[in-house]
C-alpha cells in the first residue's frame, strides 16, 4: 500500500481557465483535496501552457511554455509530481514531456529559450504529470473514497464525459492502456470508477471521448453547437441526469452551446453539467456552495436540492 500514498503532496498547476471560466473546478478540486487530506502546493508564478492555440503558431513555443511550469515545480519547489486538473494543461505537459524525450529539435529550442528567459531548463523525466483523476484514483483509491462518503450519490444517473485531450494522441500517455490499474484511451473509466465509489449510477454513454468542438467554440460556433448537441442528446438518451466533466474547456463548451442550441436550433436539453470534483465534493459532505455550483452556467441547484445534495 505504500505506493498508494505517493500523491499525498503534489505540485498543483491550475492553469488560466481555472482562474476564469473554470473557477468552480479550481474551487471544488481544492475542496476535495482538503476533504481527502491530499495536499496541493500551487506551482509558483506559473504561466499559461499554451492551451490549444499557441501550437498553431508554432508547437515548440507550447513545448517551452509547458516545460517552464514543470521546471519550476522540479527545480524551484523540489516536486516530482505535477497535478493538472485541466485536460488542456495536462495534455500539453504530457506532450512537452514526450517531445523533450524524443525530439532533439524541441530540446534545443527549450534549452535556448530557458537560458534566455533566465531559468533552469526542464529535463525530461524530472516530474510525472498527472490528471486530477489519477490524483484521486491513485492517491486515495475507491476504497479510501468510499470510507469518506457522507452523502452518497445514490439515485443520480451520470454520463461520464472525458473529451479529447485526456486520451489523444495515444503516444503522449505511455502509462495508459496498460491493463488493470491503468486508464484506457479508447474506453477511459477512472471517472466512472470514482463516481461509482461515491454511490452514483453510471449510464452506458457512447460519447465519452467524443469532441465538443472546444478549440473552435467561438471561431466556428455552428460546428461546436452541433457537436455539443450530439453529446447532450446522447447523454439524455442514455438516461443520464448529469454529465460529469473533467475539463474546463469541455465544461464551459457544453454549458454555452446548450444555450446556443436552444436559441439557434430550437433544441432544448435539460441534462445538468457538473465537474466530477463538484459531485465528489458533495458526496464527501461539502455544500453545493463550497464546490462552486453557483458559479456554473448550467443551473443545477434545483436538481441537487431534489436529490438531497444541496
Amino acid at each position, binding site marked *: 500500500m505504500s505506493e498508494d500514498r505517493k500523491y499525498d503532496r503534489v505540485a498543483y498547476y491550475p492553469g488560466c*481557465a481555472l482562474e476564469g471560466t473554470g473557477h468552480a473546478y479550481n474551487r471544488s478540486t481544492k475542496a476535495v483535496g482538503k476533504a481527502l487530506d491530499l495536499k496541493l502546493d500551487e506551482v509558483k508564478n506559473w504561466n499559461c501552457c499554451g492551451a490549444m492555440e499557441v501550437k498553431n503558431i508554432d508547437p515548440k513555443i507550447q513545448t517551452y511554455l509547458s516545460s517552464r511550469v514543470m521546471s519550476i515545480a522540479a527545480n524551484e519547489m523540489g516536486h516530482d509530481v505535477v497535478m493538472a486538473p485541466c485536460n488542456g494543461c495536462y495534455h500539453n505537459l504530457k506532450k512537452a514531456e514526450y517531445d523533450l524525450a524524443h525530439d532533439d529539435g524541441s530540446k534545443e529550442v527549450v534549452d535556448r529559450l530557458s537560458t534566455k528567459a533566465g531559468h533552469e531548463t526542464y529535463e525530461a523525466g524530472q516530474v510525472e504529470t498527472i490528471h486530477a483523476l489519477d490524483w484521486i484514483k491513485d492517491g486515495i483509491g475507491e476504497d479510501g473514497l468510499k470510507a469518506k462518503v457522507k452523502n452518497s450519490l445514490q439515485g443520480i444517473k451520470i454520463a461520464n464525459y472525458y473529451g479529447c485531450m485526456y486520451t489523444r494522441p495515444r503516444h503522449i500517455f505511455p502509462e495508459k492502456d496498460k491493463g488493470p490499474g491503468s486508464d484506457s484511451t479508447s474506453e477511459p473509466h477512472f471517472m466512472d470508477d470514482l463516481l461509482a465509489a461515491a454511490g452514483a449510477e453510471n449510464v452506458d454513454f457512447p460519447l465519452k471521448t467524443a469532441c465538443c468542438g472546444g478549440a473552435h467554440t467561438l471561431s466556428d460556433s455552428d460546428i461546436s453547437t452541433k457537436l455539443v448537441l450530439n453529446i447532450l442528446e446522447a447523454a439524455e438518451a442514455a438516461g443520464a441526469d448529469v454529465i460529469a466533466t473533467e475539463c474546463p474547456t469541455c465544461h464551459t463548451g457544453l454549458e454555452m452551446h446548450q444555450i446556443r442550441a436552444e436559441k439557434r436550433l430550437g433544441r432544448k436539453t435539460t441534462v445538468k453539467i457538473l465537474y466530477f470534483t463538484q459531485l465528489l465534493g458533495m458526496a464527501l459532505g461539502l455544500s453545493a456552495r463550497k464546490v462552486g455550483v453557483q458559479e456554473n452556467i448550467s443551473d443545477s441547484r434545483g436538481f441537487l436540492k431534489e436529490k438531497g445534495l444541496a
Partner: protein
Amino acid sequence: MPIHEQSLIRPENIKTHDKLEIDGIDVSGHWSTFIESRVVTDYNEALEDEIAALPGGEYIHRCWQCGSCTNSCTVNAVNPDFNPRYWIYLIRTGMESELLRDKDIIWQCISCNKCTYACPRDVEPEGVMKATAHWLEKKGHTPKSPSIIFDELFAEQVIARGKIEESSIIRQFFKRTGQPLMQDWLVAMARGLLMKLPVGLMRRMGLAVLFRPRTSGWSKARAALEEYVEECEREQRRALGLGDGKPE
C-alpha cells in the same frame, strides 16, 4: 490512384448533346453521355515539400491512403466534404488546383486528434490540416480564418503577459472578426449567470478584468519568445519561397 478521378464526374465535366453525330453514328442524348477529357498540366511539384516545411506537416510523406483519418474525423461527420485523406492525396500528387476547391473549409479542423489516434502510419493528420490551412493563408489563397485570428490573439497575450484573461480575448476576438458582442445566446448566458452569482465572485471577476493576470518576471521570457516567433516566421517564408524571408 483513382481518388481524384471523382473530379471528372462533377456536373460541369459531364456532357450530353442534343444533336451530335460522329462518323455517321448518332451520339445524342442521355444514353451517350460523355465525360470531358482532361489533361492536367499544372502540377505543383513543390506542394508536398512546402506543406512538410510548416509545423505539423512533417510526416505527410508517410501516408499510404488507408483512409482511417477521414473515417474517424469529427468534422467529416458533420460535413462530408471535409476529407483529410483526399487532401493529403492531392498534396502528395501536387494537384494544387483541386486542393484549392476546398480552401475555405480546411481550417475547420478542430484538433480532436481522432485521426492521429487512428493513423497506422503516424502521419499526424491533425498537424497536416493545420499546416495546410497555414499554407493557404501564407500563399494568399484565403484570408485569415477566424481560427487563426483566435490563435494569434491568444498567443500574443500569452507571449506578452505569460497568462491569459479569457474575457478580454473573447472581446478582442469579436472585435477583430467584426461580430457583435451582443449575440442572443451570449446575452442569455450572461443573464443566467448574473442572476445567481454572489457579489464577492463578481468583484473578483471585475478585478481580473481591471488587473489582468500576468506572470511576474516574465519580461525576459517575453523577449526570448518574440525573437523566436520572428525566427519561425522567417524560416517559414523562406521555405515557401516568399520574398527574402523577411517578415512583411
